[in-house]
Each structure stands twice: as structure tokens, then as C-alpha cells.
């Protein structure tokens, strides 16, 4: 029997009582992906607000970065940027393989992507420790505050998304079934978002 399952599973299963009695035709965009898209719109507005806050405050200052504040490490972060983008590319191909039902191959690429993402996060953490040593803290200047606010907000998104992806990656390893994939797709899309935001932030905050 071919059944339409438009009741995607989002973090957990939802009930499917009615789809047993009468088929509802399949919606063009699955629930999980539609829900995530809406969420990403909110997220995009959130980052847009942070960026405009940054620009507004910067435009009110004579010297940027303010006198006496450390400069940011442009080169190492450039490498780190490449690593994050690479992670996004791997995720993209993993998504493609999943769609072709090549679960094992997709699963492998997804693992690589998660690994690269985690590396990015660790490198960022080390950078923070050094910057704090050099005297850049949230309260050292509004520059420091903005840096930790914006980069921190992004880092928080990286961390959260990686944890969820890791959770599903682990589950998929054990089950390899379709339902799990429906769960994973929305978070892969979230990962693209997190990756795409980063080069913008890098250009804005590091390369000024």
C-alpha cells in the first residue's frame, strides 16, 4: 500500500491517525522542511539585527577598533572559515546522497561535515581564550562587547546545530531507515544557514 506520509517527524514523532483513513495528498514541502524554513527566516532577521546594531554603533565611533584594543587574527580565521565552508559543502553532498537513498555514503559525508564543524568550534574557542588574554573582554569596550555578542551568537548556533546533527547521525548509524532521514533534512538545511552566515560575519567584523 502506498501511503502518503505528510506527517513528518520533527524532533520526535507526531500522530498520524487520520492518514490511515483517507489519503491526503502529499504537500509540496514536507512539514519538517517548511517548519525549519520559517525558523530560519526568524534567525536571519536575528542576525540582520545584530549586523545593523554593529554598523550603527561602529558609525558612531571615531576609531575602529577603539584605541588600545587588540586586533583580530585575520589569517587563522580565514583558514577556519574555509574549514566551515567545507563542512557545509560536505553536508550538501550528504544531503544529495540521502535523497538518492544512498544512506551509507551520505552518512559518511555527514560524519566528515560534523567533524569539520566541530573543528571550527574548537578553533574559535582557542581564539577567544587568546583574545581574552590580550585584553579583549565584553566590558573592555563596546567593540569587545559586539565581538563576543555576534561571534558568540553564531558559535552558539554552530554548537546547537552540531549537537542535534550528531544525535541524528548516531541514530541513523543504528537504524538506517527512512524516518530518520526525514528528521535529518531540516537540520541539514539549518546547517547551511549557519555556514552561510559566517563568511558575512567574517567579512564584516574581521576585515574592516
Amino acid at each position: 500500500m502506498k501511503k502518503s506520509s505528510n506527517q513528518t517527524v520533527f524532533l520526535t514523532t507526531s500522530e498520524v491517525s487520520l492518514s490511515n483513513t483517507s489519503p491526503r495528498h502529499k504537500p509540496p514541502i514536507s512539514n519538517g522542511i517548511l517548519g525549519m524554513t520559517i525558523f530560519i527566516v526568524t534567525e536571519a532577521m536575528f542576525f540582520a539585527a545584530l549586523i545593523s546594531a554593529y554598523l550603527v554603533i561602529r558609525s558612531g565611533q571615531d576609531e575602529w577598533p577603539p584605541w588600545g584594543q587588540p586586533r583580530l587574527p585575520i589569517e587563522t580565521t580565514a583558514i577556519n572559515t574555509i574549514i566551515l565552508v567545507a563542512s557545509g559543502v560536505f553536508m550538501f553532498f550528504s544531503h544529495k546522497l540521502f535523497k538518492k537513498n544512498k544512506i551509507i555514503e551520505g552518512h559518511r559525508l555527514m560524519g566528515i561535515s560534523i567533524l569539520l564543524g566541530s573543528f571550527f568550534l574548537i578553533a574559535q574557542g582557542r581564539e577567544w581564550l587568546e583574545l581574552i588574554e590580550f585584553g579583549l573582554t565584553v566590558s573592555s569596550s563596546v567593540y569587545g562587547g559586539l565581538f563576543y555578542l555576534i561571534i558568540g551568537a553564531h558559535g552558539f548556533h554552530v554548537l546547537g546545530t552540531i549537537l542535534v546533527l550528531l544525535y541524528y547521525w548516531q541514530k541513523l548509524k543504528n537504524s538506517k531507515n527512512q524516518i530518520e532521514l526525514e528528521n535529518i533534512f531540516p537540520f541539514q538545511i539549518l546547517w547551511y544557514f549557519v555556514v552561510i552566515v559566517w563568511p558575512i560575519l567574517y567579512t564584516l567584523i574581521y576585515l574592516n
Partner: protein
Amino acid sequence: MSQATTAVQKEQHSEHHQELSFLYKYILPLDHKIIGMQYIFTGLIMAVIGGYFAYAFRMQLAFPGEIVPLYGLVGPGEYNMLVTNHGTIMIFWVAMPVLIAGFGNYIIPLMIGCDDMVFPRLNRLSYQIFLASALVLILSFFVKGGGFGGAWTAYPPLSSVAEYSLTDWGSSLWLLAVALEFVSFLLGGINFITTTMNSRAPGMKMMDIPIAVWFIVIAVILFMASVGPLIAGAVMLFMDQRIGTSFFLPSGGGDPLLWQHLFWFFGHPEVYVVLLPTMGIVADIITVFARKKLFGYRTVLYTAFATGGLSFVVWAHHQFIAGIDPRMANVFVVTTVLISIPLAEMMFCYIATLYGGSIQFTTPMLWGLGFLAAFLIGGVTGIYLGASAIDVYFHDSYFVIAHFHYTFFPITIIGMFAALTYWFPKMFGRMMNETLGKIHFWGTFIPFNCLFLPLFLLGLAGQNRRVYNFLNYPDLARQELHDLRVFATMSLVVMLLFQFVFIYNFFVSMFFGKKAPNNPWEANSLEWSIPSPPPHGNFKTLPSVYRGPYEYSVPGRESDYWPQNEPPKK
């Protein structure tokens, strides 16, 4: 689909229809109807708190320095706290939970013909976060220094520096509560949009969706698109308060105007977020009780989109005298006046719907008509304020207070009563008492006007808002002005007393009212085709939809309504 999937679904299916224990049915429910009611009841309790606060500070304004019966003495700091939290509660903990989350949850799946929201667990989580946010807010009243008193708009530096606000923890908890509340509505919003887009009953095309559902969905889209900046602002304000950043402090290189922009970028769309659900609910009510097709379904829908789009570019009309560039102010004057056009068009469609209808003055209809009449005044006075030349004088005066109460009160309170009285039979399976309902309507509607019309006059006379005791200012202490204040306060007290009629009617009808049939109002939309109250899972079989929701008094038919799911005759 694979066998495994089917098996999993079967298993869930049977699990789903087991008799649920009390705990899972009412405390940790997944059923959208119960979650909706949780939101509605929490919202009603918060409304009582908000109303009580209003009572306390209005008494202070009318009888300054005297002990307020049932409250006590209102000190200056406490006055600020009461006003701030009254506004916050009414907007974020009454208007939004009752009208969007509460009725949205209750009616969306019923009106589009499906069994539940697509993400029921997310839905439950959303309510739990909301409840937590309400508790945090209530907690903030009791910490050292008392609740936050820096106005619902929380302008820094007053809101960010504890030495200025004198409510170190009150401000932070207030902010935390608001942030939690947004997270809760974010989760709910994802659910509403996805459900409406993906789970409609077969045959229900976009233009067959009842306006009530459409408008809740548009409201949620506006909310989702505008809340990001405020969350960003809230995080920044919280950091300013607690970890020593200075995003909004000029002394540290920050910019206090930035907060105003972030706040109002959300704040203005937010007024349409609360407006649209009531507008939609009223559309459904007036068509049922005028027994007429909605005039211009598409026009109504498109004007809502236009209003929603424009609402993102009018925010600086709240900041005309905040020091923004006057050239920029001109732009915002134009957009503000523009936004009244689609709204007026929508209003005309509603009036045209009523024109020539066979109107039944039931209680829900009275509330619906009362909403339209009162909101009209609110909308029209908004256009005055939108002209910067006038607003320079009116800003922060009681004229503004009267304006937004003529919008918010109809939306929140009148709209809530309209929806409650209209869907009460469906929700509880009993009818409410009509006579008591009408007494309550007039006992609310007349005092409401007596309460807020004088505030326009006081605003015109130059009375500023956020003042603790007007008798300290010779110009404002004049007897004729003070009489208006006393009159307004007395009207409030009368209005509050009439609410007991509602409470009595509500609870007595819930248990002893006349049993409600499936379709007491002879309405078309799908929720009236199933038993009252609807069983768990709502529809026995998936309904099929053949027409739009507003086919009333169709020529050539015997009955004057035509349910959406009635198959056409061959």
C-alpha cells in the same frame, strides 16, 4: 512507503487513541484543543492580574495618595511598576496567548479539517515555556527592589542601569520573562503556519480557508519576521544589565536610540500581530450572524497582506521626537498614512458585509459589532498621530494612551469575548446564557467608552503620560481635568464589576448550561460539523471540502447556510 514505516505509524496510531490518564490528558496534553484551552485559561488569569494593576494605578490617579481599597498605598516606584507590568501583561500575556496561541490552537485544526497540529510535542513544549515565562514575570514582582518600572518599551539607560531603575533583579527577570515568551510563540508559530499549509482537508483550496485562520497565520508570519531583532535587542539589554557591556549606554560608546529602533521594528508589526487574529475572528462572526457572504474575501485577504508588509516600514513614527533625522521622519509619516489605506479598505469590506444582512443580535455578534465600532476610533486617531507635526505635541500624552486603548481594548478584550462566546458551545458542549451575555456586553462596552474618551480630552489638554500625581502640577491639577480623571477611574471600576457577570455566566454555563447541538449558530465552517465538544482526534473521517466558508443565503437553496463539507447535489 516501506512496511516498517507503516508498522511504526500503526503502532503510534493505537497508542494515540488509548484512553489517556488525567495527567496526560490535562497536564501534559498533546491534543491541540487542550493546549489551546491551557493558553486561554492562563491568559485569562493573567488578564485578571493586569486588570487588578490597572485598578490600582487608576485609583491612584483619581485619588492621589489615598489608600486604594483591596490594594493599599501606591507609592511612586510602585506606580511605575504597576503601569509597566500592566502593559506588558496585557500585550504579551493576554492578547498574544489568548487570541493567537489559545484560539489559534483551538480553531486552526478544527477549521481546516485535520486531527491535530503537525508538531504536537513542539506545541506542548511551547505552552510549557509560556507558563514558565508567566511564572518568571510573577516572580519578578516579589524580588528585592520590586518589579520592573521602566515602561513596557524598556528604553535604556533607565532599563539597563540598576542605579537608575532601582530594580536590579526586577528588570532582568522582566526581560527574561519576555524573552522566554517569545521563544514559546516562535515554536507555536512554526506549528500554525506548517499545519495550515500542509494539513488542510482534501478540497480546501487556499481561498477556501476561513479568514479567521488566514489572519492568525498572517499574524504569526509577521511575528516570526519581526521578533528576531527584538530578541537580539533583549540579549544586548540583558548583557548591559548583567555583564557590563555598553551597547545602549552612550558613556561606553553605545547608542540608546538603537534599542528604540530594535524595539519598534518589532513593536509596530506587533500591533498588527494582535490585531489580525481578532479581525479574522470577527469576519467569521459577522458573516454567520448577518447571514451574508463575506464582502470581498480576496480583498480582505490582500489588504491584510498589504497591511502586514507596510507594518515593517512605519516603526519610527514612535520616535518622532526621539532625535531622529527630520527627513527620515517625513518618510515615516508617508508610510504611516499609507498603512491606513488597506486597513480602511478592510473595514469597508466588513461594513459592506453587514449592509443588507439579516442581522441577529446574539452576544457574539454584539461583541463583533462593538469591536468594529470601537476599533474605528482607534484607527482614525492613529492617523492623527502619524502626522509628525501633530505628534510632536501629542507624543507621550494621554491622547496616545487613548489611541492605543481604542485599538488594544477592542482587540484584546472585546475580541476575546467575541471569540469566547462564539466558540463556547463548541468548546464546552453547552450554551451560554444570552441575557447575562448581553448584560455583560453593555456593562463592558459603555464603561469602556466612558473610561477612554475622557483620556483623549486630557491628552488634548496637555496631560503627559507616566506621571504619578497630577495634582503636583498646577496646570494639570485644574478641577475640570481632575473630574475627568475621576470619571474615567469610576468607569473602570464599574466595568470591572461587570466582569463578575461574565465569570458567573462562564462557569455556570460550563456545567449547567443548555446542551449545545453540533451547529448552534448554523455556520458553515468545518468545526461545526462535528460533536460539541469535539472528541480526541476531532473528525471521525477526514472531511472533504467543496466550497468556501461564507456561502450564506445562497439563492435557490432551502437553508440559508451551506456547510463547507456538504457534497454538492448531482
